[in-house]
């Protein structure tokens, strides 16, 4: 029998024969290792998991188009590409437009958005009823609902209007020589359109009116009567009719024209159409209406309760454009990383500015930092105490074997071989206990993660060798003292039992 085999046999024999005691030592190490691997796994994973919980505070980043540019849902998707998809909790585009509700003579800010994303970026929205799923369904803020007595299932008609004044502003900005187009309601509410060109001083250079829809021979003259049309040349916008203008306006030669006799309404329509004129190709003043079903009442405790929410495509249908005013993003990352994303977004699309919602990012950093420190300290304290507990148990188990050591010494065993044997035993127990503990600890961390955060935890491969190693070191260290004491003592005294 070789020396090595003898050594192995001694260790295994001692482990097997002294089952109950070794079981205690093993159990103690396994408990320590479980706590070690469990707590460390949790500690590593807590920032990620807790960070996800903090997303319930809503968006921490907003994207805005730079002044004078437009953002669309498509350009938004493009920009989002620079942020890792796994970190984006949600991204809600918003388009705010004021819509009228003529039946109640009210108007409210209406937000077009994507409801599936809103539920992610604003999980605190509380909807009585349901989020809209189909087209022509809306969510109404609680304040509006209470004031107007709107309930889930109610039907409301919303109107979108562009006013003529918006056109005027654009006409003033238009370059000389460009054709401007405008329209207005004439007699019998039929549309009259006008095209005009301005010179460098903003004076009308040429004009044509399409009034074929008006009463033939009376209203239609507005489009054909040269005397009526020629008087516009050299005038400035806005225009008014001499028989409706009063006071100073009437005397203002630059802005007043005479109506076609007997066709005041059509003349007024032609003047309005010119006042409304915008760059051709732009939308003329319009009014579109749509019926909507209310699927839910929104309460948030904030100003959102005064808004109406509908899907972006519905709002696009009303406004006939696909602009997005702002996008709210909820990203699981800390403030520093978020700042980086902000820069990356601006680089990817210079027309988009990304800004952090300071209230959320700042507060999150401070609270999350505290929570992490809490878990860290708890982990350290628990580990420290547990490890000392493990050593005391090992100490007790080994001390008990003083007699055996004495006997072996009396039989002529060298101090070194005794030390080696006990150390081997300790290391074996440490390794085995560490393995068991690492598995149990991961199980514990998994239970915690699933129960607390509702998601599974990622396995930290490095933690397995670390746990085993730490357990072995602790077992070996705690064996040292009792062995040293036992070896130092005269075998005769030990055997005598004193």
């Amino acid at each position, binding site marked *: 029998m070789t020396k090595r085999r003898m050594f192995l046999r001694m260790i295994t024999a001692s482990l097997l024969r002294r089952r109950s005691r070794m079981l205690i030592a093993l159990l*103690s190490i396994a408990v320590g290792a479980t706590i070690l691997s469990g707590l460390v796994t949790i500690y590593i994973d807590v920032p990620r998991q807790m960070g996800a919980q903090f997303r319930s505070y809503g968006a921490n980043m907003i994207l805005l188009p730079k002044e004078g540019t437009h953002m669309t849902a498509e350009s938004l998707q493009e920009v989002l590409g620079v942020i890792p998809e796994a970190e984006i909790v949600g991204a809600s585009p918003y388009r705010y437009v004021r819509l009228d509700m003529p039946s109640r003579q009210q108007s409210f800010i209406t937000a077009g958005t994507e409801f599936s994303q809103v539920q992610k970026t604003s999980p605190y929205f509380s909807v009585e009823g349901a989020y809209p799923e189909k087209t022509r369904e809306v969510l109404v803020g609680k304040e509006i609902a209470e004031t107007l007595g709107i309930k889930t299932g109610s039907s409301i008609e919303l109107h979108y209007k562009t006013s003529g004044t918006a056109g005027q502003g654009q006409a003033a900005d238009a370059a000389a020589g460009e054709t401007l187009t405008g329209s207005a309601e004439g007699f019998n509410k039929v549309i009259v359109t006008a095209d005009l060109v301005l010179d460098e001083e903003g004076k009308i250079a040429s004009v044509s009116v399409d009034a074929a829809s008006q009463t033939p021979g009376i209203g239609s003259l507005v489009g054909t009567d040269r005397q009526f049309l020629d008087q516009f040349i050299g005038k400035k916008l806005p225009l008014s009719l001499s028989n409706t203008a009063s006071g100073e306006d009437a005397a203002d030669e630059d802005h007043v024209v005479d109506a076609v006799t007997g066709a005041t309404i059509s003349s007024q329509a032609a003047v309005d159409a010119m006042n409304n004129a915008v760059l051709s190709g732009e939308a003329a003043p319009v009014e579109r209406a749509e019926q909507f079903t209310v699927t839910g009442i929104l309460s948030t405790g904030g100003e959102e309760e005064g808004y109406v929410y509908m899907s972006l495509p519905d709002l696009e249908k009303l406004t006939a454009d696909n602009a997005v005013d702002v996008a709210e993003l909820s990203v699981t990352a800390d403030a520093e990383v978020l700042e980086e994303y902000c820069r990356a977004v601006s680089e990817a699309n210079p027309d988009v500015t990304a800004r952090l919602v300071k209230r959320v990012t700042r507060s999150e950093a401070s609270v999350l930092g505290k929570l992490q*420190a809490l878990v860290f300290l708890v982990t350290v304290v628990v580990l420290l105490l547990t490890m000392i507990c493990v050593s005391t148990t090992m100490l007790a188990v080994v001390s008990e074997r003083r007699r055996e050591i004495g006997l072996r010494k009396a039989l002529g065993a060298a101090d070194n071989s005794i030390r080696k044997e006990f150390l081997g035993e300790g290391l074996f127990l440490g390794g085995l206990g560490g393995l068991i503990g690492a598995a149990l600890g991961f199980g514990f961390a998994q239970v915690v993660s699933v129960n*607390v955060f509702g998601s599974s935890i990622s396995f930290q491969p490095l933690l397995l060798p670390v746990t085993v190693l730490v357990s072995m070191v602790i077992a070996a260290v705690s064996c040292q003292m009792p062995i040293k004491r036992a070896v130092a003592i005269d075998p005769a005294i030990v055997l005598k039992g004193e």
Partner: protein
Amino acid sequence: MLFKMIRGVLYHQRAKMLLIAFTIVLGTSLATGMLNVMWDVGDKVNQELKTYGANITVKPKDASLLTDIYDVGEGEQLSEAYLNEEDLPKLKTIFWAFNIVDFTPFLEADASLPDGTDAKIVGTWFNHHLSLPTGEELDAGIAGMRSWWDVTGGNWLDESEPSAASSVMVGTLLAEEKGWKIGDEITLAGSAKEMTATVAGIYDAGGDEDLEIYAPLDLVQALTDREGKVDRIEVSALTTPDNELAQRAAKNPSALSSRDYETWYCTAYVSAICYQIQEAIPNASAAAVRQVAESEGTILDKTQLLMLLITALSLIGAALGISNLVTASVMERSMEIGLLKAIGARDRSITFVIMVEILVTALIGGVAGYFLGFGFAQLIGQSVFGSAIEMKLKVIPIVAALITLVTLAGSLPAIRMVLRLRPAEVLHGGQ
């Protein structure tokens, strides 16, 4: 005789007993520390979450949507509704007054600037000193409720200084646009009068506030001739996460049974606090800011559950650690037990003697461990939250029961096992 034996063991085998006592000290301190931290972590984290700002807003009951939704500017004399500034201290008289951490009033107006443009001016308290009828002293204001604002130039207005009455704080974007610096005098014209004020601070709020002016409440009241009036109040309160009862109550408190109502009213649910604020302040309507209130609930629940599970793990660890060692120490004494048996001691008396020895050790270790554990809790409280962890009396019986149970569970089976062995075998040294 018993006393003498126990004293003998404690004295002669003090190294072994010390080891047991030491382990029990560690186990107890672990249990005490974790339980104390676990029960206090809710309050502490709740306190931290106050950095997110107010969780309740109070508005006049009849405040219509007018200014909010229809863009009707102030001064157009539509039926405007206000709260009274003098009612504010009443917030600290409600049932959950102690949970109201901070509050501040707001009064908004449009001020015309000398260059012909308008800017939104918000009157508020900065660090308003209140002496309550209850004798309590308190500083309330936005300095504590806008923790995310960076004061990039100057300082927060200090209302205790006389110069504060004619000072304002300006948002960074507005200051940049107008070229204002700290110490500049600006002229503000409100609907009632024109005043000059000194720019005392420039802040970066990262939101719409950056285009606004924040001024002392009195200044805005004088500017628009609305003495003693307030638009809205923001309240920051410590609350208990909502449960099913709170949700039912929030819809309609009067629909609750009287018992449920009492439970609800006497729990710090955000809806209960809102309800009490409405009772205390005439003509007020208080609503929870869901973004803050709801998220607070989620995070508090999660943190508490996390701490509960970690505590459970440490308790199991401590329990196994102690019972392991006790078992080991009993088995170690097999020779002594065999000897006692050989000279005719009855099993019951042997068990009794050993149990008493161990329990006395456990008592000593437990008491020491309790205080050590409390120290650990304070260490965690001070270094993480900068405040002491409250001593919870309910921890004592729990820890006492745990230690007793664990010591018994660790020693009894071991003693019985050793007793089952034949004295001759034990004394002979065989296993």
